[in-house]
């Protein structure tokens, strides 16, 4: 009897060990962006698991490519009237927008069946991992989400994996329907490579309206006003600035708005062309401001993500939050707050009349089976109809200048107005300004800075990253 027990225990332990070893190898992950309520549910884990499987693929597919075995034949994105759309749109509003687009496209093209191949998690990192392995293995999706600017131009376009679609733009006469600065961001060597669907603004500062009303404060427009307001709030025992940098891009996001505020659009853009070094005195001044603004943040910033930080403002635990205007969608849709009643907004300090854009675009990869269907879809994406279907749901504004403002809420309408008059600048934190290599190194440098506050170290790291990644 006792002996049996012992065997049972040992085998239980061994089975445990085997299971564990298997678990350890799987690169399971969940969406760190997720709100706590959702995390751990099946929907969360499913796409992420997918990443795990695919993350190991590049090596194998490359080997295949090297041996001259072209995996082209089984490429998806085509087949008989099939279209695969690859994105990381799995959040509430954005998924609704994407599904509405798919519905509409399918009802216009009844013979095409659309596959929604969205991958959740890691603010797009998980999706990028899957995409990289598929592109390198010659198995591209029909079309995929990519930010305008460096992400597109220094990524797959530079790698020679995208087809130009300038002809679509000419046929549809889009050249004056989208802002010129934006078209520049999707143009490489005179060819256009994608269709922008939406515009988000990164240099927005949201604040809790009732706190500001209670203490008779005005939204700060300059750095000095910001410090003034922040000091008053601090004296009242309110956290002036909410930050959630569990994922350090949020800190980089704050820094990019400060860079633009101090440098202005022209010098800001020169950083990304390499004409202006990070060792310049203007950048040093921006770092000073960054350091000073970090004095006003919540203590538990490292344990929060961007939604948690936005929630602090929503609940009145903090007064202000610098975040892209997807936070407006989060306030209005998820938290059901009233624009201009519960929450207010302004440009981040010293960036009035300037607009850091984050634009999701879709392009045509090389070697898809059915390029005509993809072209049809891209043509559809650029239409007023598609843009006005998608954007109100996602909480972004249309990339076209002639879309219908009536479709959008108060925040959207004001932003549409700003967008048409402001000077545009690409976002660093969202991969539009600089190659992915620079962004990831800047991200690390900023993460270290938030703790160390070592100005010299930050500037040195940024300078090195610029020399290595930007010609």
């Amino acid at each position, binding site marked *: 009897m006792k002996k049996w027990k012992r065997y049972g225990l*040992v085998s239980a332990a061994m089975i445990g060990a085997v299971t*564990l070893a298997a678990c350890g190898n799987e*690169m399971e992950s969940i969406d760190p962006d997720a709100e*706590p309520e959702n995390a*751990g549910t099946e929907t969360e884990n499913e796409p992420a698991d997918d990443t795990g499987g695919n993350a190991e693929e590049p090596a194998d597919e490359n080997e295949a490519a090297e041996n001259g075995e072209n995996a082209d034949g089984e490429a998806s994105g085509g087949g008989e009237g099939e279209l695969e759309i690859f994105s990381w749109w799995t959040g509430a509003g954005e998924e609704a927008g994407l599904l509405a687009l798919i519905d509409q496209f399918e009802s216009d093209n009844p013979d095409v069946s659309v596959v929604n191949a969205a991958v959740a998690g890691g603010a797009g990192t998980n999706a990028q991992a899957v995409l990289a392995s598929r592109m390198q293995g010659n198995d591209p999706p029909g079309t995929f989400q990519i930010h305008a600017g460096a992400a597109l131009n220094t990524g797959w376009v530079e790698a020679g994996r995208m087809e130009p679609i300038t002809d679509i733009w000419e046929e549809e006469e889009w050249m004056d329907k989208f802002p010129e600065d934006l078209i520049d961001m999707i143009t490489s060597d005179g060819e256009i490579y994608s269709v922008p669907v939406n515009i988000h603004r990164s240099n927005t500062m949201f604040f809790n309206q009732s706190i500001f009303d209670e203490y008779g404060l005005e939204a700060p427009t300059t750095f000095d006003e910001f410090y003034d307001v922040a000091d008053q709030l601090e004296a009242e025992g309110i956290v002036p600035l909410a930050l959630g940098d569990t994922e350090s891009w949020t800190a980089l996001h704050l820094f990019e708005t400060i860079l633009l505020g101090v440098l202005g659009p022209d010098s800001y853009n020169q950083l990304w062309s390499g004409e202006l070094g990070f060792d310049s005195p203007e950048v040093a001044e921006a770092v000073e401001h960054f350091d000073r603004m970090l004095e006003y943040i919540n203590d538990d910033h490292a344990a929060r993500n961007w939604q948690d930080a936005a929630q602090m403002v929503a609940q009145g635990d903090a007064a202000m939050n610098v975040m892209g205007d997807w936070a407006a969608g989060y306030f209005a849709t998820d938290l059901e707050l009233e624009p201009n009643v519960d929450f207010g907004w302004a440009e981040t300090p010293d960036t009035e009349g300037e607009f850091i854009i984050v634009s999701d675009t879709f392009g045509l990869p090389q070697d898809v089976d059915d390029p005509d269907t993809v072209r049809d879809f891209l043509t559809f994406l650029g239409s007023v109809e598609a843009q006005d279907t998608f954007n109100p749901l996602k909480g972004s504004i249309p990339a076209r200048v002639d879309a219908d403002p009536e479709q959008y809420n108060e925040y959207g309408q004001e932003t549409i107005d700003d967008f048409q008059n402001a000077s545009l600048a690409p976002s660093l934190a969202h991969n539009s300004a600089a190659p992915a290599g620079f962004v990831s190194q800047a991200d690390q440098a900023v993460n270290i800075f938030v703790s160390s506050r070592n100005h010299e170290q930050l500037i040195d790291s940024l300078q090195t990253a610029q020399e290595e990644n930007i010609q």
Partner: protein
Amino acid sequence: MQSKGISKDKWLAFLFLLPSIIAIAVFVYGFISWTGYVSLTNWNTLTPDFSFAGLRNYIFLFNDYRFLSGMRNTIFFTLFFLLGVLAMGFFLASFIDSNLKGEFFFRNIFLFPMALSFVVTGVVWQWLLNPSTGVNLLFTMLGFESVPQWYTSTTIAFGFPFPLGGIEFGIPVAMLAVVIAAVWQMTGFSLAMYLAGLRGIPDEVKEAARVDGASEFHIYRKVIFPMLMPITVSVVIIMGHMSLKIFDLIYAMTGSGPNFVTDVPGVYMFETTFRGNFFAQGAAIAIIMLVLVAVIIVPYLINARKGES
């Protein structure tokens, strides 16, 4: 067995093993070599570039703040995790072994966390050890003025400047929060192993020691511990190799942490490869992790082989 050639049985056995031998040769060893090759190239953008870079990627890593922080964290995580699992497992096993009522119940209580995935554990402990919610609410309620910062603490205990990469070498306090979660999940395993081990020690041996006048302490030191040695080694090997390549728990619970206090090479590898497109650099990290694990596993395998023959 001489000159008769290989028997039919052996051929058959070989035939049955062949598919898995081929699969492992390609999908495990093939890709390890491929990763090793990539780690020596300049492929650090989306465009594959297989020009030879020598040890450039490795040299970079050994001067890199983030990588060295990750290595430091891994070392201390592994150390404390092993200590925790061994101590807790042994303690609970002796407790259950002492003819406790409801043994079945307790055994399963402690084994249960093992059924969870590290991701689930990570999410749960992320909330429990959150500096502004979770157990800290309890501490505040009890009137503690300063509460622990758990996994967001940037303190490096007993720290001193490390000559490479500008990092501070010492015990990253934030990592201890992760250790708590990992020990909670894995104690069941060492408990089961130790319980089996304790049951395997015949009462006669202990009785004999008692007759010879040994104290309980002496019995543990001179009889029980030595007889449990093989089990301790197995637990250390199995848990050690897991903790050296830990990824999911960290990714779900803390991410790389403020100032990289909870970063580990696995997370760095994933992010540098797929966010930064530094493919060769990611491959180099993978190879270093492989070497680390091999340092533990290979002596064990050699030893096990000696034991067999």
